[in-house]
């Protein structure tokens, strides 16, 4: 049997898993696994033709089970997501090697399980990305869900509870997809990808709606779309450091992949647009777009209230997912490109941010935003990484997040969607607010006495962070590099392709050239610096030499503002949170609990059997007569 390139990649990935599984306890295991991830990346790059020109590469492995044919293949879409997956796995794994690993073991963590779970996640994700029919898609989907569960539950305690919550949500989503799968199978008698298109053409409006809801909901759970977003933040945040970087970067994007594959490529946006929401003026596409913007706004503002750096970032991860979906469902050239570019960009800065926070935890032992401060003088490189990351996250120039958000905005503007546009901008503003809180409370302000002797994170952690920072900046400067891959992805899923250049996008209605923008920005900084440094030399003073209305500051007085950071804002909108959809989850939980109690009562009552028997007889009598 000839091995195709895809087979090589999957074998490599499987080998990584086996290495992690069997020699994961060895000290060099981390490095070995990292090198193998590098090998996977090389195997993926051998398929680079997919990313640049499109086409498909099939796996030579096919199966036939119970009359269902299973096959696997890669196209530009898979390749793009696989690139992000393996890239983030490589860097996260690199980050975990050496210093972090040792401290993790010292704290009683199981590093073998960690490496295994990471390798398993990558492997299952690749299988999902390679799925060539709906059944293999579902199989990959479930595998990814459970692999994710393993990684999330690693830390035990709070993490395990969060993972439990995740798996309940994921199962619900999985079952929705399962149901949708069955409907498609019924309609078209096949589970090949083309069958979806056939099924969709045959289906009536109501059934199609059901299908869209089942698939949208099922995939949406993984993406953390409203109102299924509650599981994500605690689950990602409580995962051990590099794991959360990896999960935050790519895991929930698998949902977007599936949405792109099924809803966009196979259903077609046109079909979705033709589904009207009854009694309203909007259609299913608008509905998805609105879900997307609420997914942007609410988690972002929830993030603002977090007091733990990891939770804050994880909540943003949910919110940023909304931009991706928004861009994709707007589905014009710029929107599609923006949504997909944001997948790439988000992976880079989210991984960098989680790594920076992990570095801080590694040195200080806490990620509590109220217990940190002033670390910039002790961990300047981590500060720079975090700064670059938050600029990307907030979508400000000159980092890459700006480009993707710009594209999404432009598409909304071109399509004339003012409310969505407004909502997207509100999300961005909220992001700016909360990321400032993040960087301020960790790195700025007064250095605490107990952190006087903290030093910069070790190089084994620093290098992956710096690489990511460089990627964030370079792709911000030259977004044409990822846009080239995205162009083939857009072609693959049948969306229009924007007219891109190395520095941005050309368009008759206003274009963007990041090389120029960043050029003048840095020139501006240069001029500013010239003005600034031409004046007298400044003198550093101690942080306690500070205006306090004439008060004498001493080290034991905590002269720092970190708690209830946006007090004025919360004064107005604090009351609007109201548990942020927790009521929904609690309501469902209580309902299940209540029903469960009733059902147990049914079985456990002293003479329940007789009641039941009479009910049964009654039912029989009713049916017979």
């Amino acid at each position, binding site marked *: 049997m000839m091995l195709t390139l895809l087979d090589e990649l999957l074998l490599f990935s499987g080998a990584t898993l086996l290495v992690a599984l069997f020699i994961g306890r060895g000290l060099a295991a981390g490095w070995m696994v990292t090198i193998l991830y590098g090998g996977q990346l090389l195997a993926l790059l051998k398929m680079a033709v997919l990313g640049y020109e499109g086409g498909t590469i099939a796996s030579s492995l096919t199966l036939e089970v*119970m009359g269902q044919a299973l096959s696997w293949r890669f196209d530009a879409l898979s390749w793009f997501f696989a690139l992000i997956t393996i890239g983030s796995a490589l860097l996260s794994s690199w980050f975990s090697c050496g210093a972090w690993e040792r401290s993790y073991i010292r704290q009683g963590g199981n590093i073998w399980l960690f490496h295994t779970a990471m390798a398993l996640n990558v492997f299952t994700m690749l299988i999902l990305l390679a799925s060539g029919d709906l059944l293999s898609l*579902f199989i990959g989907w479930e595998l990814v869900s459970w692999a994710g569960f393993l990684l999330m539950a690693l830390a*035990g*305690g709070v993490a*395990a509870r969060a993972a439990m919550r995740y798996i309940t949500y994921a199962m*619900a989503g999985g079952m929705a997809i399962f149901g949708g799968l069955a409907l498609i199978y019924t309609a078209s008698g096949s589970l090949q990808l083309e069958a979806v298109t056939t099924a969709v053409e045959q289906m009536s409006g109501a059934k199609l709606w059901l299908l869209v809801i089942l698939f949208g909901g099922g995939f949406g759970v993984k993406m953390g779309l409203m109102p299924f977003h509650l599981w994500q933040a605690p689950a990602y945040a409580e995962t051990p450091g590099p794991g959360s970087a990896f999960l935050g970067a790519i895991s929930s994007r698998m949902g977007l992949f599936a949405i792109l594959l099924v809803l966009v490529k196979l259903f077609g946006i046109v079909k979705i647009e033709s589904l009207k929401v009854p009694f309203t003026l909007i259609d299913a596409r608008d509905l998805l777009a609105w879900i997307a913007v609420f997914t942007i706004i609410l988690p972002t503002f929830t993030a603002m209230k977090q007091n733990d750096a990891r939770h804050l970032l994880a909540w943003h991860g949910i919110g940023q997912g909304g931009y991706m979906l928004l861009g994709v469902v707007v589905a014009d050239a710029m929107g599609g490109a923006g949504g997909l570019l944001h997948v790439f960009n988000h992976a880079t800065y989210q991984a960098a941010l989680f790594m920076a926070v992990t570095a801080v935890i590694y040195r200080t032992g806490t990620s509590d935003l109220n217990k940190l401060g002033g670390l910039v003088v002790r961990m300047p490189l981590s500060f720079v990484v975090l700064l670059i990351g938050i600029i990307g996250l907030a979508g400000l120039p000159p980092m890459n997040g700006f480009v993707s958000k710009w594209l999404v905005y432009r598409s909304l503007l071109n399509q004339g969607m003012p409310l969505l546009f407004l909502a997207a901008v509100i999300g961005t503003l909220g992001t700016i607010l909360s990321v400032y809180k993040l960087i301020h409370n960790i790195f700025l302000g007064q250095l605490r006495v107990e952190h006087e002797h903290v030093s910069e994170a070790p190089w084994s952690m620093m290098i992956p962070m710096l690489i990511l920072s460089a990627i964030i900046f370079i792709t911000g400067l030259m977004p044409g590099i990822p846009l080239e891959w995205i162009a083939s992805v857009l072609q693959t899923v049948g969306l229009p392709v924007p007219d891109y250049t190395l520095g941005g996008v050309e368009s008759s209605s206003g274009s963007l050239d990041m090389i120029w923008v960043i050029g003048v920005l840095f020139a501006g900084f240069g001029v500013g610096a010239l003005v600034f440094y031409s004046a007298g030399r400044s003198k550093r003073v101690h942080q306690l030499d500070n205006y306090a209305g004439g008060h004498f500051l001493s080290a034991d007085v905590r002269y720092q503002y970190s708690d209830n950071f946006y007090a004025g804002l919360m004064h107005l909108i604090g009351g609007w949170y109201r548990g942020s959809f927790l009521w929904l989850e609690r309501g469902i939980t209580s309902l299940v609990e209540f029903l469960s109690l009733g059902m147990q009562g049914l079985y456990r009552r002293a003479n329940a059997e007789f009641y039941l028997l009479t009910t049964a007889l009654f039912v029989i009598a009713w049916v017979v007569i």
Partner: protein
Amino acid sequence: MSTNLVLIIALPLLGAFLLPVLMRSSMAIALWSGPAILIYGCWIIADLWLSGFAQPLSVAIGGFAPPLGINLYVDSLALLFAFAVQLLGLVFWPFTLDQESARRQSLMLLLVAASTGLALSGDLFNLYVFYELAAVATFGLASASGSGAAYVATLRYLILSGIGSVLTLFGIALIYSQTGTLNLAHLAQLAPEQLHNSLGLTAFLAILIGIGVKAELFPVNTWVPEIYATASTRLSAFLAGLLSKLALLIILRLLLLIFHQPEAAQVILILGILGVISGELAAWRAREMKRMLAFSSIGQLGMIFIAMALPDGKGMLAVLALSLHHLIIKSGLFMLAEDWGGALERLRGSAKASPLGAVLFVLFSLSLVGMPPLPGFWAKFVLITELAAQVEPLYLLGLAVFLLATVVEASYLFRVAATLYGSPAQDTLSEEIPKTKGLSLLTASLFGAGVIAVALLIAPVGDGLQAIAAQALDVDLYITTVSPAVSGGSQ
């Protein structure tokens, strides 16, 4: 060959009565005779299977040809279950030897004999007799622990079962008064004219409720949590794993051969849905391993009932797959529960003490909720594709309930898994954490290996099951096999 097949019922029956006597003379013989009988039974069936068993065959007993005489009907489905009975009888054999266990061993043999009879019998009244025989053996085994709770539970089970047998008898009487025969093949011929009316439906429903007591059918399954909580784990495993499936097999045969009316299917569907809802939800709140498994088993059987209710035998493959899957998984889980019975909270941190047990638990749970490469997924997949193909809203409701129940199932099973892997409370001594060990762990590992083997060999296993299902679905084949006269052939 036919005599051999009779032997697999007759030998355990004989053994059951002789064992107490043998015990008096020689402990060693008594110790090994039971397993020897079961191994022989397994060998007979395996031999039959391997020697190119393709066509079903009918074995007349006592020289009278059906429909007058009593016959055994042996097709691959029956043979599969008969084999499972013998094998599981061996697996769950109470291996200690004293006066008390002698009684248990002979009751076990009795149970095996009756169960094999249930699997093979081709006559309605014979089924009833074997059914009652199995019930008596079950009562004996269930009350064997001797605690007050076991007695009360057994009595309640007995009364429920008694009502069931009254109803079954009533149904049989109705059928007989209508047709004058109790041979299944004969009934299958007569049914379209004589039994597809409200009288026949009443008879079927009476039998359904009656047999349903054993099959954990929704309204008559209140005995389940009590019996599983008080009886020995091995018995529970046998009851949940096998006996319920045999009762199910009877209902399935009746449904396929005789009562293929839509109303019958509808009732089964409704009861199945209710069973799923009640079982899974009740399990969600269970605080104790065995009871959780008991409730979960009710839910699982509800799913099988839903599959059974599919019209025109479409659910046959699903029923078969789900039954076998549940048989393996539940037996394995009950084996783990042998050491892990009791409050779930006590299991906190058990994974450290017994890693293999924890891994097996997770494996079984994953398969039960249907994680893809494991066999449970394929079983569920077969079911839902068939369910979704139905146009009637009730089936779609069944589909929705089935999917939601799976979510609930995952939730409570993995709560236990999380407890297993959690860190024990501060004041717990390591000796206090229950560990899985010895024979039960070995047995559970066997089941675990089985699950993995099936997962790896899913393609051939699926084909095999499809063949079995196709054979079981063929009513004409059944009729011609039992009474060749109809088609003019001769035996």
